[in-house]
């Protein structure tokens, strides 16, 4: 397989090259410190495998990857140092990556996956995997500040770390918020405003002064004769929008094309 290496640090490039040289089936056909030159070279003669550093000064590795032609997209192995949110995105993605620092053992483990993909994947597969990864990374960058994947809550005397994506309804209750999942109700020490921040990764809609609803769990929407919205979530809980929030709820539902006549 023909390999290209793109990294703006010479020593980092040498490390990858040395690892590649120990593999009999790899030929390094190009090494670039400047992403723009690299882009031209890749377009002119696409390699099979591309080792691509993400954090480069003049152009991010992700931008470079996005600029590549779909039909001749190489197998990309991203190299990154530290970004917790990026790691979470990589873990669920079909795109390979290496964490700095890495040693021979880790390089070989990644290479084994690359070889399998080389035999099985089409450029179309690679392209959709790459697009999904980049979208995930961009969404991660938007919500990372306050979002929490888990919140601590109590039900009776039992304490739970709830996955925010499972929570259907959040309701204010004096110094607490009530979190509803299915038929279970949990209490967390928080205000509704703090909860709103923790739940930033979820499509939460405020339907009254004291109630947020996770739209990804809504199963049914109807209206009362007065025009208030009645929302039913998967777990069966029913909530009604208040007069003051009728209009924002209507606009939100209209955007989703969910509003009943």
């Amino acid at each position, binding site marked *: 397989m023909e390999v290209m290496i793109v990294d703006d640090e010479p020593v980092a490039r040498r490390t990858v090259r040395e690892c590649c040289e120990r593999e009999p089936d790899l030929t390094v056909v190009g090494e670039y410190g400047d992403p723009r030159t690299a882009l031209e070279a890749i377009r002119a003669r696409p390699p099979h495998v591309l080792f691509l550093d993400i954090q480069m000064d003049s152009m991010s590795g992700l931008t470079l990857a996005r600029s590549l032609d779909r039909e001749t997209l190489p197998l990309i192995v991203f190299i990154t140092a*530290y970004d*917790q949110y990026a*790691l*979470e995105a990589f*873990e*669920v993605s079909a795109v390979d990556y290496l*964490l*700095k*620092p*890495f*040693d*021979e*053992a*880790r390089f070989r483990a990644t290479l084994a996956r690359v070889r399998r993909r080389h035999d099985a994947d089409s450029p179309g597969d690679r392209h959709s995997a790459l697009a999904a990864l980049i979208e995930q990374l961009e969404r991660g960058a938007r919500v990372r500040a306050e979002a*929490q*994947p*888990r919140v*601590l809550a109590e039900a009776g*005397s*039992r*304490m*739970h*770390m*709830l*996955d925010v994506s*499972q929570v259907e309804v959040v309701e204010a209750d*004096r*110094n607490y918020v009530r979190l509803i*999942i*299915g038929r*279970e109700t949990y209490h967390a*020490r*928080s*205000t*509704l*405003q*703090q909860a*709103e921040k923790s739940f930033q990764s979820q499509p939460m809609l*405020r339907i009254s*002064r004291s109630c947020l609803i996770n739209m990804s769990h809504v199963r049914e929407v109807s209206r009362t004769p007065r025009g208030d919205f009645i929302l039913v979530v998967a777990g069966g809980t029913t909530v009604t929008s208040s*007069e*003051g929030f009728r209009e*924002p709820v209507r606009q939100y539902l209209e955007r989703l094309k969910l509003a009943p006549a």
Partner: protein
Amino acid sequence: MRAADPEISGKMSASPLERITPALGALTRQDAALPRGDTLASALTLRPQLAVLTAFWIYVALSNVLYANSMQASFSNMKMERVFAPWDARLIQHLVLYPLFLLSMWRSMRTGWQPLWRAIPLQLLCALGFAVLASPSLVLGEYLTHEWHREEWTHSDFVKTWGSWQGFATHEIPIWVASITSFLVTYGFGLALVMGFTFYQRLRDSQLRSAALERALTRAHLAALRMQLSPHTLFNLLHTIRGQIAWDPPAAQAMVVQLGDLLRRLLNAGEREFSRLSDELQFVTLYLELQQRRFADRLTIEVPAREAHARAWVPSLILQPLVENAVVHGLAGHEGAVTIRVEARVESEELTLRVLNTVAPGKLAGLSGIGLANVRERLTVQFGERAGFDAGPGADGLWVAQMRMPLLRDGPEGMARPEGGAAA
């Protein structure tokens, strides 16, 4: 309306008394999520005060009408002429006064009580402005209804009282003064009621806000306590790696990678309050394996499998200070082998984590250190009375550090999703 102004909503008032009576809109429950400039929402926030004042005013109107009616009834029995205005005239009086009452209340609350020397005359002016209009409103009511009560109130009577200054001075002024004093008292009660209610609202809000602030502080405090890898350990590890570079290059490379993993996990865990127990165990394993490389064959480690208690969560990096202490404490003062064992046990909604280490004979002295104080403090902040930490000599010449805390588990049973890799 200033209700939706985030400047005001977000501000922590130094004292709730200081701004007890600002604009009505700003008094009501502040809520950053209200859409900006949404007049409907702003109007809604006035509701509680309006309801209180309206209820009060209905009470005043009813009591005045009933009082006048019953007094008149008893006077009529004594064959006296009508002295009290009829009930419908009084009702009209109170209806006319209702908007005036609301207006002067609103004005009075905007004025507030600071500074006192300026506020008191203004407040009195407000109250007088309202009370002075009480009697004329009754006259207006009587004028509007006098057609229906021709027998008591003839047009000439009206002209007699209101037509000349003398008639006015002898008939109306004493009644007017009496009505002013009576309505001043009513006004005072109303003002006290709505201010008390507003004060209660503000107190409740400030309690909510201070609870929120306290939580934010606690969170910042906990974050500071989490970063606990001692610099001593870090630099010793770097030094070991430096020595290995020439001696055993592959081992040096492997150590660098392991140290990278350790630091990455440390940073990750430092950013969140809780981690899965399995991730915590993996972290201490990584840490202990690095220490094993430093001390070659002296160190034996036993850590439960990652799969043990897979659904349990613990405060991030809570085990690390104990393990670090066990290494330092176990290796000190002798040249022999050391065993470090980590145990995790769940019993009736309680999780117990223990770190045991062998020590040199006769070295079972007290255990201290900033790391352990931090562990105790974090457990207390997080769980209060429901958690505990102690350390001391155990059986078989082992040193035992033990903490117990409420078991934190995933959400509803059967809904747990498989999650890979680092702490979710």
